């Protein structure tokens, strides 16, 4: 666990220079609060899950294929990603140039009692992303790694995977709507002008 040192509240915002330039799908729990922290609780350019664990990457892929002229991000945690790790292979096959994944990996199941997760033991998600066939993969484990990864997030000419390793400090405490239909409608109104 020696390289899980960065604080997510400090580092995550540095990866995304202008959050409003992106459509974002978040996995449940910490990742949704990381994104709410930069987009606001009432932001309409992101769709945050509070369940459906394992679906964030695939949902992001569906959105990216539907909106090829927009930059689409999936922000999710290590546990959420591991539940459907095969999604990385699906993403690699489709390889949409407007899509990227940021995995905020704290090596723990933070919502359930902070049990050590697989990544806290031995699993390396960046290696799994490379193995799935994703070409642009970056690991951010110290301050010096941030600038290059932020450039990949901003540049976006091929699908990317940023593996952000953080300590188990909590994500921002932000209250947001858990109404999955309301947030869908707000997102679609903002993007498509229709409910």
């Amino acid at each position, binding site marked *: 666990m020696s390289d899980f040192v960065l604080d997510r509240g400090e580092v995550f915002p540095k990866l995304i220079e202008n959050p409003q330039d992106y*459509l974002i*799908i978040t996995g449940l729990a910490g990742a949704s609060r990381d994104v709410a922290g930069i987009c606001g609780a009432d932001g309409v350019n992101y*769709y945050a*899950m509070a*369940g*459906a*664990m*394992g*679906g*964030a*990457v*695939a*949902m*992001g*892929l*569906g*959105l*990216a*294929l*539907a*909106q090829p002229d*927009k930059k689409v991000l999936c922000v999710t945690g290590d546990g959420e990603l591991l539940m*459907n790790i*095969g*999604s990385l*292979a*699906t993403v690699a*096959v*489709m390889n949409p140039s407007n899509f990227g994944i940021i995995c905020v990996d704290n090596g723990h199941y933070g919502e359930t009692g902070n049990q050590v997760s697989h990544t806290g033991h031995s699993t390396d998600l960046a290696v799994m992303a490379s193995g799935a066939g994703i070409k642009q993969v970056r690991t951010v484990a110290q301050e010096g790694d941030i600038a290059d990864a932020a450039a990949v997030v901003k540049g976006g000419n091929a699908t990317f995977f940023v593996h952000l390793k953080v300590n188990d400090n909590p994500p921002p405490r932000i209250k947001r709507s858990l109404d*999955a*239909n309301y*947030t*869908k409608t707000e*997102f*679609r109104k903002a*993007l*498509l002008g229709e409910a």
Partner: protein
Amino acid sequence: MPFDIPTPAPGDPTWPYELYKLLKDAGVTQFSYVPDAGHRVLIDLSLADPDVHSIPLTSEEEGVAMAAGAHLGGQKHVLLMQSSGAGNCINMLSLPRLGKFPFLTILSMRGDFGEGNPWQMPMGKWVQPVLESCDVMCLRVERPDEVIPTVEAALTMAFQSQESVAVLLSQKLLGAKKFA
């Protein structure tokens, strides 16, 4: 140039080609699947068609989440799977249910009429009660002439009424796989 759907070979069933045309005419642009022989024609047509996305999945539940993402972005998605894949989708079905996302899946049945592989029987028997208990409406098709009207009805309920709908293509329609 628009994609021309090829003519079926003599003796081949025509409904898979008519079904592909129906889905495309209804505006479906994303076809996802874990491959199954019962969906061979639809999968091959989506792969050959430059106007749609043809997406191989590692697990069927990815298609449930992708369909919701497609709707957020204004596209229509259909998930093609074998009946055994229904079990992989259960938790993810909470997303279309809770968010009122349109969800349409077409299942090719194993483990029903004339099945010779006992490993297919459990999910074959469970798929409809399990999906219905997750509030997914199931429409079963047994004859070629039922395919188009049934999927037409399913498209309307999914994309206009924001329901989760599964069309089950039975082995009476598809024919049971032969085992020696």
